[in-house]
């Protein structure tokens, strides 16, 4: 018998496809979200007039030519000899560039370590599995009204704290803290640490929720408390996963620490902002330097994360 010819119209097959199509799972919430996003995109573009700003096309073009011409290192522009570029770059590195680079890395590292240390005690409190009257689903004795009330609100409060911490941009936190604590490095470290506290709280919370529950249930049934459960059965099991997230966030911190210097402290961002408008070549060199640090940080972090998996 010949196989059925699929190119001809088959009403029964079309009907089956229509039934499958009608029966597919739908989400009105997702559909509404999609329409809202689409509408917002259209409105954003329609409201962005004049799209290219108020400068004339000639002015924009002449600005661009000035900018592009200024990117070539000054000694090369004057002599036409590219061998002059290397000593010029070395001079910039010695004149604050190297120190700014180390400061950027130091701020990012100190911030992520601080965030990681502070987030750990909050993770059991944020966990839906532990932060309840009967952790791991194992009831152990009676809990008073106060205790029940505490465990009812603890999880949502800590999780909302994480949402709040990560919602404020680190640049904004640093800007406000600098005016309160003066021009020093702490505001930058604290700003990055607060923002990453919120992000690590969310990521770490997910890891704790998904951790294998058998060992903790057994420990709970044997009488272990919440902190003991977390420290002995969950933390050791998810340690590597935590490290993966810390390295991933460190990589982002390096990028953010670079620009926080634009607020006035010596990181690469300060050198970039200082050169703007007068020394395009220096600005571009520092941009390239910050990009290389970020790429290097990215490679180190990827290598470490791969080794930890």
């Amino acid at each position, binding site marked *: 018998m010949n196989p059925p010819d699929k190119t001809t119209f088959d009403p029964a097959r079309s009907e089956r496809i229509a039934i499958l199509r009608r029966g597919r*799972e739908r*989400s009105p*919430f*997702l559909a509404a*979200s999609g329409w809202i996003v689409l509408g*917002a*995109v259209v*409105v*954003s*573009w329609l409201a*962005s*007039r004049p*799209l*290219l*700003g*108020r400068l004339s096309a000639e*002015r924009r073009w002449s*600005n661009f030519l000035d*900018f*592009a011409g200024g990117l070539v290192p000054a000694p090369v522009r004057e002599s036409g000899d590219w061998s002059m570029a290397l000593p010029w770059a070395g001079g910039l590195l010695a004149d604050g560039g190297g120190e700014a680079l180390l*400061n950027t890395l*130091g*701020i990012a*590292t*100190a911030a992520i*370590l601080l965030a990681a240390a502070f987030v750990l005690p909050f993770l059991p409190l944020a966990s839906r599995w532990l932060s309840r009257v009967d952790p791991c689903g194992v009831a152990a004795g009676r809990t008073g009204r106060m205790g029940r009330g505490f465990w009812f609100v603890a999880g949502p409060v800590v999780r909302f704290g994480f*949402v*709040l911490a*990560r*919602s*404020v*941009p680190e*640049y*904004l936190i640093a*800007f406000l803290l600098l*005016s*309160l*604590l*003066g021009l*020093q*490095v*702490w505001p930058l*470290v*604290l700003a990055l640490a607060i923002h990453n506290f919120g992000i690590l709280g969310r990521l770490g919370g997910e890891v704790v929720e998904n951790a294998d529950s058998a060992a903790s249930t057994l420990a709970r049934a044997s009488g272990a408390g919440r902190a003991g459960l977390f420290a002995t059965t969950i933390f*050791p099991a998810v*340690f590597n996963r935590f490290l993966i997230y810390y390295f991933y966030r460190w990589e982002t911190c390096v*990028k953010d620490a*670079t*620009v926080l210097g634009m607020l006035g402290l010596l990181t690469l*961002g300060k050198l*970039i*902002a200082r050169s*703007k*408008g007068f020394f395009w070549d220096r*600005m571009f060199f520092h*941009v390239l330097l*910050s*990009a*290389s640090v970020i*790429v290097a940080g990215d490679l180190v972090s990827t290598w470490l994360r791969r080794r930890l998996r």
Partner: protein
Amino acid sequence: MKPPLQTHRGQKRRALLGFALLFLVCAWWLGLTPAGLLPPDERHWERAGSFFAAALDPAFDYEDDSVPDDAPPLVWKACEGLLLTLRFAFGAMSLAVPAALVLGFLGSSAWWPEPCVPRLRFLLGAVYGGTRLLMSVLRSIHELIWALLILSAVGVSPLAGMVALALPFSGTLGKVFSELIDEEARDAAEALKAIGHGPVQTFLVGIFPRALPNLITYAFYRFECALRSSAVLGFVGIETIGLYIELSHEEAHYREVWTYLYLLVALLVIVDLWGAAIRRRLQSDPGGCAA
């Protein structure tokens, strides 16, 4: 010989000790001392006092008496700032997502034909490597620095702000999209290849639809980041709520600063919760819902 568990514990302990030492080294290099966590002098203590006192009494009207009577109310101005912030974020993502889809496709190997002749494999490898390098360059420059570069080159404009955000975001999105596409199960794609579909058809029908829920989830997460970055663009002179915060702060109008901050945080929290709800729905249906 130590039992494996003991060795394991020793490694963790060494790692934790190493991190503590690393923090001390950073603190020494940066000059971080516990005293630095407090305002350094009387003037800063006073400023901190008025700043935090203003948190309990955010402004509903301008603190500056010289603002003309016919100026829009402060809350209206703040909402306008939020809309401008949203405008840049939506505009930037509408540029970044299509660019990232192209980069994600070119930067993945899931669609490569099998078997592949050496010359074609070399060509595809070159496209793959070039795309990944481009994505690396795009995301290795922070959006604020992109903004500085673009504004310096072509002046302040809405498009410049959107492009400044879109460039690094397309690099980051493209990298993650390519990884999500490569990690997707290939059974459906293999079946399609076996009945004679070409590589692009196989990708569009067998791989892309399965990766779509994860792509949407990640794109929405990046939208949350774009919103935060858009607010910060105000600090380089682009009109978003960040600019209003900076100006009010410079004038020491802290009650106004708190009004803007509360509204910004409320918006960011709403978008965060919206994103979480979308993630929950998409993850509960791995096949993807018909949105």
